[in-house]
């Protein structure tokens, strides 16, 4: 493929940056969190839960920070004039950039996951292979979605500060997503949302899982078999314990069962795919139209 040298150049850029390895380190340090609740929830598979904990907090913002400068950085320095002079279509440039950044971020994240797996293996013994592999795939899918968002931001902005502001705005929106969703829900329906006793509303629960990190948690909780929720696995387990009251949105707790079909955890795969495809499609649309400088 013509764009493979560009993709190689991009992943080298990521893997030779301090950022990629700081991200990997943070995932390991934050993720390794042995708790009684976690052990009670999934036993030895707590090792897989460590990956979820570390990835949930750091991968979205880390992947964004490692990709949002992919094009805007070249615009700012002027190196984009060499890039655009290569025998590549603008679409190939975009996909070369995105795939290279993804491989770089993905390699750092897989390394972090393997370190956590190694620690877990030593500390707690063997864990289930299939949920572990499934979690790795979900993690890579989340990484690709976040890189796609970063490349999209990089494509549609003309100044680095605007791109950085876009990344920060996205990050804030996802951090406060449940507050945003519940506020809108209350404004529209007039029904107040108590997270200790959430209403059995399909649209409310669907909206909560539309962010990439929310969809990731739903998928990995499904793989761990703890319940259907965007919360971390040990919180979901605690929520489903009738003797404990926790402010968490868990489908089984609200609906007393599986809930509507569209809340099936497997469908979160399509949410993540949507976050991969939609930003890249929009970025391509913007980048292939009009002036590239």
């Amino acid at each position, binding site marked *: 493929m*013509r*764009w493979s*040298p*560009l993709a190689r*150049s991009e992943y080298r*850029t990521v893997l*030779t940056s301090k950022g990629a390895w700081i991200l990997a380190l943070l995932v390991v340090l934050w993720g390794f969190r042995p708790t009684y609740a976690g052990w009670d929830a999934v036993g030895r598979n707590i090792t897989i839960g460590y990956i979820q904990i570390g990835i949930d907090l750091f991968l979205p913002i880390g992947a964004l920070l490692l990709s949002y400068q992919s094009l805007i950085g*070249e615009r*700012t*320095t*002027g*190196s984009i*004039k*060499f890039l*655009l*002079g*290569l*025998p*590549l*279509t*603008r679409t190939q440039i975009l996909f070369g950039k995105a795939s290279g950044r993804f491989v770089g971020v993905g390699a750092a994240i897989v390394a972090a996951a393997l370190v956590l797996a190694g620690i877990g293996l030593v500390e707690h013994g063997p864990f289930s292979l299939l949920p572990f592999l499934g979690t790795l795939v979900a993690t890579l899918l989340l990484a690709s979605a976040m890189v796609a968002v970063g490349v999209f931001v990089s494509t549609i902005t003309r100044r680095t500060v605007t791109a950085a502001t876009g990344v920060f705005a996205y990050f804030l929106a996802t951090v406060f997503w449940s507050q945003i969703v519940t506020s809108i829900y209350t404004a529209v329906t007039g029904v107040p949302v108590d997270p200790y006793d959430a209403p059995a509303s399909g649209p409310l629960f669907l909206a909560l899982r539309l962010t990439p990190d929310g969809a990731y948690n739903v998928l990995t909780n499904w793989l761990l078999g703890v319940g259907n929720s965007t919360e971390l696995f040990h919180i979901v387990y605690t929520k489903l314990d009738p003797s404990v009251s926790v402010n968490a949105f868990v489908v089984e707790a609200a609906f007393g069962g599986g809930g509507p079909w569209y809340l099936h955890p497997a469908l979160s795969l399509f949410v993540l795919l949507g976050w991969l495809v939609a930003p890249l499609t929009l970025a391509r649309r913007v980048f292939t139209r*009009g*002036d*590239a*400088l």
Partner: protein
Amino acid sequence: MSDAAPAIETEALTKEYGDARAVDRLDLVVERGETYGFLGPNGAGKSTTIGLLLDYLRPTSGTARVLGNDPRRDVVEVHDRVGILPDRFGLYEDRSARQHVAFVTETKRAGDDPETLLERVGLEDAVDDATKDFSSGMEQRLALAMALVGDPELLILDEPFGGLDPHGVRRVREIVNEETERGTTVFFSSHVLGQVELVCDRIGVLHEGQLVAEGTLTELRNRATVADDTTIEDVFVELTDARVGDGGERR
């Protein structure tokens, strides 16, 4: 695509930014094998024209053909056969000169040895140095080495003498001459008029986006009604002087 087609051909090529017209109904033909100097004061629209020829920018109206191809539709074909030295470019600071050239050779699937190209432009002592420490002249030489990858049929050099010391200027001139002897078409924009005079077969003078004069230096002298031994600088000033101040700066 046609091998008989001119190296560059534009018809009524126009680029507007809001109300400002950077390139104004430009009709330009550069034949194969010639060395064409594209002159004009700062802001005349030279870099914009080059941007349109390379699909960096899209025209408001009109057409451009490069080696018989549409720069937009046939961008891979065009960029494969064209060597580009852009104006006001930036390098990848964390990479060496060799890595810069290798990146282009790999993408173009050319068999060039990066070290040989870097020697050719006079960077043999800095092959593996990171470019963040390069002077502007070294950056310019490196960009020229990247433009030479794959023995291009057409070299588009935008202000190739910028930042070069006299040795560098001479080196660029020698390379342009070598490439011309090889049959390469060379199209370069410059406002370093003395160098244009030494290198070019034909000269086009762009002013406020329009081609105001074109021909050999002798033809331009005749048109500007100046003496036969007048320098190109005087010819240039004569051709553009009446128009300076008529409009604002262009990209």
